[in-house]
């Protein structure tokens, strides 16, 4: 079942007289519960695609449709609600709020949604991520892997429908990277959350249900389409 699709999605950066196509006429359909890996070389438009799909950035042209509604026709506030309830986002550089402890960072989307935290779920999540002993620390006092796990917990705190992860292992050493990836895979399988993951690591991509390879802003190869 399709959860999200995009049609003729383009993002153009104006650099002086030249137009740089970060993304050029990309059309995709994402299946619910899938693990989709977006790969490609640096500058191929992976991150841009992820940003546009998750409603973090605005496309130059094209549409993103989530559950039959066009994402970029929402107002900023509606889009905010959507982001905090339906989407989770894991950044490569973690982007934790440095003034808040790990636990507080995790609670942030729940609080913004004015809901009570589902503590049982969060505890399960924390145990799963193995960050219980780091919860009362500020991000500055955590290692990269720990920060990334907190940021994953934060992304999952509201039980999103889709989890976007932008090179979540990019800043981590091999072992931490593998652990994080296992976690994500686990989350995808156990909680049924659709996982869209950007990576240039082919080992990571191998574990995905579907691999979309981008080149110069266009889809060069899509394993999902081939399978269909």
């Amino acid at each position, binding site marked *: 079942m399709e959860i999200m699709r995009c049609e003729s999605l383009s993002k153009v950066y104006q650099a002086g007289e030249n137009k740089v196509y970060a993304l050029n006429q990309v059309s995709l359909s994402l299946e619910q519960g899938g693990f989709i890996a977006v790969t490609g070389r640096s500058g191929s438009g992976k991150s841009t695609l992820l940003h546009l799909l998750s409603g973090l950035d605005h496309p130059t042209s094209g549409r993103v449709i989530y559950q039959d509604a066009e994402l970029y026709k929402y107002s900023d506030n509606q889009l*905010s609600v959507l982001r905090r309830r339906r989407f989770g986002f894991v950044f490569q550089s973690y982007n934790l709020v440095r*003034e808040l402890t790990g636990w507080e960072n995790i609670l942030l*989307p729940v609080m913004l949604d004015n809901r009570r935290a589902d503590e049982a779920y969060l505890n399960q999540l924390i145990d799963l991520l193995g960050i219980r002993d780091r919860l009362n620390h500020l991000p500055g006092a955590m290692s990269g892997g720990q920060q990334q796990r907190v940021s994953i917990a934060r992304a999952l705190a509201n039980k999103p429908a889709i989890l976007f992860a932008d090179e979540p292992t990019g800043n981590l050493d091999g072992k931490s990277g593998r652990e994080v990836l296992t976690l994500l895979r686990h989350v995808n399988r156990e909680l049924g959350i659709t996982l869209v993951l950007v990576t240039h690591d082919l080992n990571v991509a191998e574990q995905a249900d579907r691999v979309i390879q981008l080149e110069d802003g266009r889809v060069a190869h899509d394993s999902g389409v081939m399978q269909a």
Partner: protein
Amino acid sequence: MKRLTMNRVAWASLRHYRKSYASLAAGIFLAVYLACTAVLCIHGTLEAGNEQMARRLGRADTILLNSPHVTDEQIRSSNLFDQLGHIYVTASVENTDVYTGYYDKTANHLMYRRCVEGRMPEKAGEIAAEQSALDKLGLENAAVGDVFTWNMQPFEGLSEQRSYTLVGILSEQTVYLNPDRWFSTGFGTVQLPAILISADDPPFPVGSATVHRVMTDRPLVTLNQIQNWQDGLLHMSCHISRVTGRITPYDSTEYEMERRAEQAALWLMLGGALLLSACVGIASAMESMLDRKTEDIGMLRAVGATRRQIRRLLGRDAWLLAIIALPVGVALGCLTCWGLSRMMPEKMVFHPSPWLLLPVLGVSGLCVFLSSALPLRRASRQTPMGVLRDTALLRRARRFHSRRAFDGPQLIALRQFRLHPLRQAGSICMVALMLICLMTLCVIASLMDWSALGYQEAFILSGGGQTLEGVENDPFVQELEAGAGLTQSDMHQLRSLPLVSRVDMRLSTRVILQLPDDTPGYFQTQYVPLRLANGYETRYSVRVTDGGLNTAYLDSIESSFDLPDEFHKRDAELDAAKHRALQQATGVEQNMVPMTVIVATLDDENFSGNLVAGDVDLAALDSGREVLVYAPNIVARAEGDRGGMHQTNQFFDDEISPAQWDAVLINDFFSVGQTLPLMQLAGVQADSPTILMSEDALRSYYGGMERTSLVPVVGGILKGHLDIGGTWFFCPCLITTEKGAVTLGLRSNGVESACVSLASAPDVDTEALLARRIERIGNRHGMTFTNSLETRRQDRAYQMQIIALFGGMALLFFAVSVSMQVTSIARRIRADERMVGTFRAVGADETALARCYRLPVLMAAVCGLILAAAVCGAIRWAGLLMFRPWALLAALPMAALNVLCALAGVRGQLRRVMGRSIIENIREL
């Protein structure tokens, strides 16, 4: 290779961060500019005051009265005086206090005599006279060209008839000396010539003219120096106006100086407030500058810079900026002051001097130093790794925990507040200053009388009625003297002036009250023991009479009445002798005490708060049937002794608590409906009784007086603070109306004070005319004239100035506090852009983000409010200004408005950042 110095590093930093230094530079420039403007304005205001005073009152002068043993040479060699002139007073005219005389050339210049009509006398037989002198001589209609033959009385020798031709009317001068009688000599009269004769006038055969000398004080000579010079000289330090010729003793200029000082204080306050805001601006700009340089600081610390080096290096920027800002700031400050002096030439002059640069440099330097010290200190105290990783700071921030429910934005705001308290300190100060100004404004406005200035009690003549002889009067006798106080015809003249609706009068006269056989306690003298600082024990006496009479005589002095010491005993014996002579002369056997009767224009509203028994029945007062009695309960307390001197303080019984009473005199005599057996002894007496007179002489003195008996009934008893016609009364007295005094047959001198009310507000010309005519009527009797309209106008103008000042300051602080908060938060939002992006990425909307920044604004308002309330409380506690709690309520809307404006600014800034996409927000630089 060029050597690397602190200055070079600072310059490089200035060049590199050029744009970021803008706000710091602006703050420093503002401080220099404001310091310069404030110093110039204060200096200009004081200078203008001096110039104005010199114009109106003259420069500092000294008049040396009749001191033949001091030679001109001594005066010149004293180095205290510049110019020296001589005033020759030749004779008294018709035995009055009008004197003739002439000046030498310098005195003529210094005394500034000029004619308002005609010319100065040039040859023998010619005179120029002041109009008031002619009035006193009964020549009110004299005109230039008239010839008078007067009996001239020189200071020694026989009087002589001389004829003079009036050739000019002089501008008034001696008349100003009369009211306070400060210019009297041992003869008790003013001895400066009111009538000028020519120096060619033939001298009198015996004796010579009295010579006064007039000198201008050298610059920087103090009053003290002159007073210490040849102690015991009859000299007067005064101002002689070069415009009006008016002579004013130093005392009256004190008020003038106070006014100037107040004006300068206002400038000081305004300047101080502005400087403070500039300081806060510098501090917050410095703080944000240092925030931006956090990594540099960490790097410097890492490469081994000491705290002191960091402080010096970063502080150097501020000093370099101050040096750059100095010439521009000073130039602009001069320009502003010049402009202000053009706008209000009477209030301020522009006299720049290189010396003024010193305070300017000092003040602006101090501003820069103080305001940059705290941020620099904070910056330099960070640890190298702490700065780089921020963890040390953040650890402190963790002291704030979410209490009930987790609230991210609020927590962030709280922790930011904890991390950067100085960022908020400035805003809090500004909000507090704004609220203090506003509350002060409210309190001042509430104290002000907003009704129209009014034309009631517009002009006041006071200080008349007393006999001009400076000899102590006998308390039992009303001495009569022609010309003392306003006469009926003067009152009639006052009443018939245009626009005058009513003239309230007051005068006093003396009567004798016959007491019952047992002397009431109210009239007995009480003695209070007093231990002086030097260990000496004494007693002071407390009594109700105001005539200096020791009422101890009432308990016959031969009896065993216990008088504390010889002094009091002799005092009482003398008064007992007087009393015996009085009894024998009048044939009255009872004891008697003197009482003052106040005769005044009364109406129903008088005494409403004073009446304790009976009522004020004007008809009964007018008919002479009743009088009112003022019989306050008097308590006394001995205080303030200074080595042998002691001071007796008398209060009313409600003023101090009974525990503090040393003596108390409670009315146990007067009651409503009581018939008062009164007697008045009145008469013109050349020789007043002295303590040396025998009882026989006293008997014939009292026997020679005109005697009137009267038996009015007490209509009402008054107590507390009694104010009649602007004068406070403290001793018991009787009160009646003008008609009542006539029906009772009381004899008195003329009216002591008259208060002229107008039917409507006069125009400028009418006011000037009225003032001139009323002043002239008063001048005839040596009374002091006060134009209350002018005083009220000045007061109103001054109050409006203060209100405008505080209003302006409140607005200024409002603007500064809002802009400070908005710019500080805008800076933070820019710096926090990544966090804003993160928040947006996890689904925060504008409202949630605004909450991160709302807290500092609310905190600034609440803390500012608390601070302002505390300061106002302290001011109230110190007794400087009576702040009332409702002023705080008035401050609330302003604080709320401040919050709203700041929040609107915050929203605007947030929208700007949110106009960019989240990815742009979180993109790493």
